[in-house]
């Protein structure tokens, strides 16, 4: 299977007062065309940093890429000319749905103005050539009309009532769910091949979340767009993803098709994580210990201080990727059940 996106050995440090924090440590990740991949992990595990590294929008002053590649359709985005990435990839071939729909619009402009500003530069009908300074850029009349048609059509696709009136309204006139629909529309408009969705439903109520997840999944499947969906909510991941990758403290632990992931998790961390979801019977099982500091992370597998199966091997080396069954792989020296039914 030809990968659309292949992240290989990506390591990113953040500068802090106490020294560099190793936020990503040799991450591998694949996204196939048309696939919805869930990136699951607890807060601070580096999933947002990974999403930002792929988009090339890490904070310039604080983040330092220590090594690795981000290959998108064969080109390494980290080594490609930044201008070419900006013109052709970011916002075009790869788009973004933010976590918080409340702060992602400017409050002072109608949403129509903001969407058309996006289309002026990132419309699939615009040429990919180098662009003039934003202030002097002209928006050709015919293209504007065609783009506007596309905008209205996409707003209908995300089920916004009265698309033409929507464009004249200000962001505060919309509810959270509607704003997230607008964000999905904006992510789809440049006709991307990959959408990176960073916890897009955490800020929403469950009934609205169910509506948005259903809409997003239907739209991307219909258009054949890949999605990298970060979330800390395992239920959401179960809803929308074809395949799930688990991260812990900047390392990926396990990757598996959604069904296999929930049915026979092989990594001790994944097991613990699934166990800590409150069960209907009222059992509560937490993970003893705390998430390690990323400034001085434990050597080897970063989960070893909290792991029941840890041995000297785990403290010394980070386990290599071990393929178990169909598309199911784990980075652990002592995988539980080795992928068989528990």
């Amino acid at each position: 299977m030809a990968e659309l996106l292949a992240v290989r050995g990506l390591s990113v440090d953040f500068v802090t007062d106490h020294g560099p924090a190793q936020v990503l440590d040799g991450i591998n990740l694949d996204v196939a065309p048309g696939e919805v991949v869930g990136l699951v992990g607890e807060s601070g595990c580096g999933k947002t940093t990974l999403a930002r590294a792929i988009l090339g929008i890490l904070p310039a002053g604080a983040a330092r890429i220590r090594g690795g590649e981000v290959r998108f359709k064969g080109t390494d985005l980290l080594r490609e000319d930044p201008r070419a990435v900006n013109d052709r990839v970011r916002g075009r071939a790869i788009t973004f749905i933010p976590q918080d729909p409340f702060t992602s619009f400017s409050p002072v402009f109608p949403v129509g103005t903001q969407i058309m500003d996006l289309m002026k530069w990132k419309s699939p009908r615009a040429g990919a050539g180098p662009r003039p300074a934003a202030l002097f850029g002209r928006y050709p009349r015919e293209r504007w009309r065609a783009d506007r048609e596309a905008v209205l059509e996409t707003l209908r696709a995300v089920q916004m009532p009265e698309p033409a009136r929507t464009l004249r309204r200000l962001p505060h006139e919309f509810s959270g769910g509607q704003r997230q629909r607008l964000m999905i529309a904006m992510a789809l408009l440049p006709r991307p091949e990959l959408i990176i969705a960073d916890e897009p439903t955490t800020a929403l109520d469950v009934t609205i979340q169910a509506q948005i997840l259903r809409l997003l999944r239907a739209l991307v499947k219909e258009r054949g767009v890949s999605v990298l969906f970060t979330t800390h909510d395992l239920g959401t991941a179960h809803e929308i993803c074809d395949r799930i990758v688990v991260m812990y403290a900047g390392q990926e632990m396990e990757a598996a098709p959604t069904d296999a992931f929930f049915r026979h998790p092989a990594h001790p961390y994944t097991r613990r994580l699934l166990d800590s979801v409150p069960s209907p019977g009222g059992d509560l099982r937490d993970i003893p210990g705390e998430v390690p500091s990323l400034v001085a992370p434990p050597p080897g597998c970063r989960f070893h201080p909290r792991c029941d199966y840890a041995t000297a091997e785990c403290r010394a080396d980070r386990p290599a990727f071990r393929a178990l069954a169909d598309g199911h792989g784990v980075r652990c020296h002592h995988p539980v059940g080795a992928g068989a039914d528990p």
Partner: protein
Amino acid sequence: MSAPLLEVVDLVRHFPVRNAFGRRIGWLRAVDGVSLAVSPGETLGLVGESGCGKSTFGKTVMGIYTPTAGDIRFAGREIGRLARRERRALAKDLQYVYQDPGASLDPRWKVVHSLHEPLKIHTRLSRAERDREVRAILTAVGLPDAHLDLYPHELSGGQQRRVGVARILTLRPRLVILDEPTSGLDVSVQASVLKLFRSLQATFALTYVFISHDLSVVRAMCARIAVMYLGKIVELGETAAIFERPRHPYTQSLLAAVPLIGGRRVTQAFALEGEPPNPRDVPSGCRFRTRCPLVHDRCAVEEPALRAVDGRVVACHVA
């Protein structure tokens, strides 16, 4: 059932909506006639989506808002309209836990100082007695004595949270209102926080009102739940029964919206359309009728009252 510790009868809390000139142009009906009772030692869950009035309910019971109408009886005594001074004395028995109790610690005070303060204000204990009390509480929340001499910034987020909870418990309250105590937490941390609340309930004989939008948490923690929609209770009863067979169409939709790991995908089956109406402008009759799949003529005219159905109470004409 023993006499309820907390009994709320037809509680109403409206907020005035004002225009730019300060003239009242309407009412926001945050809590609009809620009645329930909490027995000693139980955990009552209060669930609903944002804007349904569950936090306003908690804060009105707590005395942070004064009720517009209705009665709040705590241990048999009416407390809704007490004078400020009497109300203050009651703070000892009735405590409120915010989303992140650790955030309410003073950053310039050592933990020991923060924990002694409530005892200084509300009790006449001597210094040594206070000290003994504080250490006992700290052990109960699972922190070593050495933490007494630390400042909040020297603790991790989880430890701060524990200190915040310890501070609420130093007065040995009888009723604790937990307002979304685990929202925004990761599942593994959530599990340890919930475990803590459970063990404290057993140790100190606490009664909880557990406000949350997370149904799986409520299901794990509460024996009874009340489901709210736009300021009203739509269904109230045993948790197991409600999860097993929800009767109100809103409860049914709410439960259907929760992703179930390893089960059916709600994205394929979920039917509820639209969003909750603005609480400033509630629909006539049944408040849920604008989104209800079972709506018929009567729902627009007549507001359904809570009635006993199937071992619980439900406010619906068709349930």
